């Protein structure tokens, strides 16, 4: 997962709000920490950084010199930030819903394929969370699964996704457990199955799982794909094929929950799920 930093990202419509304060949304995920700063309804900075098993240290680096006026934490490690700075914390389900709705007001279904979790969230017409589903406790069918499989095939994530997208055929990979699937892939490769076909088969198995989660909450357009999985063009293409509707991916798919957190921090108790 590559680190990236983007300042003055202009993906949001300008809001001439008079609020001169800066609000931070911090998303402490299983693999990366994401920071989004908003001022006057605009994103003024966003950054994703791998945390190498010390998410709080990474948060401090990300916040260094930024001095936000308020902070809201979300993600797997939200309570770490809450304990450190006394800030409020919300689950990534609510945060990703707020972020997705801001980026795509017509969004009714969210698929968030993250490092250790895959989540499907259903929103009603007013943007309220109606239901959600998460994968089971193992990392089967998540971003981590794809990372491990790319390594098993000796590819970077980009090569892995590109090869899968270009492959005319998909080798059926049955096991979703990261450990078992790796040995299945190794034995298929030993029997001469092309790497490209294996790559496509692995993507297809993740998509089967993600599509099943989405069907469980009920799929309604628009569907937004986010999390690190949003960077993967093959996942997007196969999801569109499986679900039969367009899959919309924001420019920065990894920071959607952090954006939602920052927007809720800015609005405080006056925040509503209604799209402004």
């Amino acid at each position: 997962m590559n680190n990236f930093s983007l300042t003055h990202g202009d993906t949001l419509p300008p809001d001439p709000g008079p609020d001169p304060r800066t609000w931070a949304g911090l998303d402490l995920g299983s693999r990366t920490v994401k920071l989004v700063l908003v001022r006057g309804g605009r994103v003024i900075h966003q950054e994703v950084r791998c945390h190498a098993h010390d998410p709080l240290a990474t948060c401090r680096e990300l916040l260094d010199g930024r001095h936000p006026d308020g902070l809201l934490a979300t993600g797997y490690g939200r309570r770490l930030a809450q304990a450190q700075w006394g800030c409020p914390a919300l689950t990534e389900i609510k945060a990703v819903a707020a972020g997705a709705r801001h980026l795509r007001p017509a969004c009714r279904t969210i698929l968030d394929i993250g490092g250790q979790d895959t989540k499907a969230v259903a929103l009603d017409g007013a943007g309220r969370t109606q239901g959600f589903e998460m994968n089971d406790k193992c990392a089967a069918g998540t971003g981590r699964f794809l990372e491990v499989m790319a390594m098993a095939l000796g590819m970077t994530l980009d090569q892995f996704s590109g090869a899968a997208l270009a492959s005319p055929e998909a080798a059926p990979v049955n096991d979703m457990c990261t450990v078992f699937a790796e040995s299945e892939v190794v034995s298929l490769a030993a029997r001469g199955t092309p790497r490209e076909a294996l790559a496509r088969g692995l993507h297809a198995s993740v998509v089967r799982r993600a599509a099943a989660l989405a069907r469980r909450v009920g799929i309604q357009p628009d569907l937004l794909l986010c999390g690190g999985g949003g960077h993967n063009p093959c996942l997007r293409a196969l999801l569109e094929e499986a679900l039969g509707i367009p899959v919309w991916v924001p420019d920065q798919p990894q920071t959607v929950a952090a954006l939602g957190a920052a927007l809720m921090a800015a609005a405080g108790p006056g925040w509503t799920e209604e799209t402004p």
Partner: protein
Amino acid sequence: MTLFDESYRSDIEIEVFRQVNARKAEGAKVFGVYCAFTPRELLAAAGGIPVALCAGSEQPMAEAERHLPRNLCPLIKSSYGHALADSCPYFHCADALVADATCDGKKKMFELLARIRPLHLLHLPQTAAGPAALDYWLAELKGVARFLEEAGGRPLTRTALGEQIERYNAFREHKRRIFELNQGPVPLVTGREIDVITAPTLFDFDLEARIAELDQARDRLLERARDPQFRAGMAARPRILLTGCPITNRKVLDLLEEAGAVVAVMENCGGMKTLGDPVATGGDPLRALAATYLAIPCPCMSPNRRRLELLESLVRSYRIDAVVELTWDACHTYNVEAWQVREHVQGACGRPYLQIHTDYSPSDCEQLRTRIGAFLEMLDPVPPAPCERRIP
């Protein structure tokens, strides 16, 4: 704010253990039980001391997996592991066991358990509907009476059984009154406190003393109704109905209440599923006992429409905001029935529903915190106020 915690439970339990051991020394028999279908009244009427056996700890799993498959319900593995390792003090105390074949996993596990203690297996009908089911069940209960006599119990008499039915009716009635403290506009007792108060000891010993303790606890809890601070705190918490598999392991109950909800009522075994209608008195006591126990709305029965009706009435009478269903791994009956429960809760009851599928391991607690947190956030759309100071 917590008045009743583990120390309340252990104080009572230590004293009861002392008394039970004294009675055992005088020749009394202790009969161990597992599921809710075994009528404790029968065991007590035979002069025995009924005791519920441990099935809630993850610790004895490894021992159990020497003989049992890994992908089996944790409750079954925990029960068997405790017996193999002799790590459950109640099992250690038990002279004989009366088990009920509520599911396939238990039924087969009990065959192994019978190597460790004399065990009588009650075979349940597959359905509770119709007179044939009741006749079958009645014959099964007569079989228990014979087993208890062979295991050192007294011969069963109509009078002794009638007396025990009245004692247990009173016991269940006083337990139910603790739950009913949560029917008002503000709940007066947390789910964790209900758990401790209504089942402080696993022995059914000196029920009269237990009833007195229940009443004392109730009086103390009622004082909370006059405490404005307590009422304000409780009023802000969403009221959850917890249903599903037995809460043998308290992980999910703890996570729900730590996340800010109050488990206002449990429908699970030991909760309202088994505290419902009293056993009828006046007629044939064994037939009345059979009828009441057979009506327990357990998913091992098909159909199990009564469970949906019970849930609906609890949602209304306890002013429930949302329903959470706990299912243990590999518990097929509850897992499969969960879809009908979800449909009924979201449809007829008009309440949000969350199914939590897990085992006894603490390894998924963080994921469950997120899932429960997101569910509670759905109930309360107003986000918390951001901290208004500069960071860091």
